[in-house]
């Protein structure tokens, strides 16, 4: 079976659309109303999966950064960067939906004495420094190395933070996993499908972002080849927080024509 083919943005996008539609149908027409919060509890099916996927993405970014430091291959750095980048977007959506839920449930947009909210904000703010950190370092190799160290350290902080919140005495925030396990069957099924939908959405956007980065790398390689042929001096790349995929080695000796015909007799 071609597992790689399943990870293409198109296949993932279709799967996301189908599972997302199923999740929304279950949320609004199948899952029963919660006794205490009533209709407001429906936010749970979007807020909690967003938070879980976002935190898992941060951890995945750390794991991919380990692979980068072990191999020195910058493609792992790009993958780690994209995972963290996507998790930041999902984290922002988590904070907004959580804030809306807090307003509806507690009457305040933000509650500072609630450990789960504040700990998530801390994690989000920690990762918000990731891009400025990258941008502050000009040398791409050093930037990638430092960013990987950051991603690993912060990635290890995420589960520790989660455990610390679990161990804290204040259990004001609704528990979802592990601690209670008292979700009724229809609610649990709806939650699992919602989680799958958000995870697929993350995978789709991740894959799309990686494909765009790949296309940009190919474009840069193509530009370099055209510049070589037209004797345009190589341009210095602008400083960026976003890593780039590696270019193929510079052409030496024979330069292949853009139309595919080899052109002999030209010095590199």
């Amino acid at each position, binding site marked *: 079976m071609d597992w790689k083919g399943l990870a293409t943005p198109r296949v993932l996008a279709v799967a996301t659309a189908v599972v997302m539609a199923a999740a929304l149908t279950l949320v609004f027409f199948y899952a029963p109303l919660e006794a205490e*919060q*009533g*209709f407001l509890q429906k936010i749970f099916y979007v807020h909690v999966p967003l938070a879980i996927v976002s935190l898992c993405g941060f951890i995945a970014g750390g794991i991919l950064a380990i692979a980068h430091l072990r191999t020195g291959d910058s493609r792992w750095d790009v993958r780690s960067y994209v995972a963290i980048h996507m998790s930041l977007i999902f984290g922002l*959506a988590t904070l907004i*939906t959580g804030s809306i839920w807090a307003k*509806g449930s507690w009457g305040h947009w933000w509650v500072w004495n609630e450990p789960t909210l504040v700990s998530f904000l801390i994690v989000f703010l920690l990762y918000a420094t990731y891009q400025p950190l990258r941008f502050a370092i000009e040398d791409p190799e050093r930037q990638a190395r430092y960013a990987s160290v950051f991603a690993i350290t912060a990635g290890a902080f995420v589960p520790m933070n989660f455990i610390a919140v679990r161990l804290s005495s204040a259990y004001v925030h609704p528990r979802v996993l592990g601690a209670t396990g008292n979700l009724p069957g229809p609610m649990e099924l709806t939650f699992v499908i919602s989680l799958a939908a958000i995870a697929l959405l993350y995978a789709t956007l991740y894959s799309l972002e990686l494909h765009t980065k790949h296309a940009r790398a190919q474009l840069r390689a*193509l530009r370099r080849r*055209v510049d070589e*042929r037209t004797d345009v001096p190589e341009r210095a790349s602008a400083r960026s927080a976003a890593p780039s995929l590696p270019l193929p080695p510079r052409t030496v000796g024979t330069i292949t024509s853009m139309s595919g015909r080899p052109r002999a007799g030209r010095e590199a």
Partner: protein
Amino acid sequence: MAALLAELPALPLHTAGKYVAAAYITLFVVIVIYVAVMALRVGRIERQLGELSERARDADAAGEQPRVGA
């Protein structure tokens, strides 16, 4: 479609409805913004690719012309 909608249970859109709607609209807006940004990026890549193709064509054409005095 109308028959199907008639069969579906009514949603209790009382005071909590606006908060639930806001939460789901947030997700939708995030996706739309992301897709819009991606569309801009892909558009830029396509434009640059078009420019490069033109330059490559010009370079190919120049390379095929016989050199004067060679």
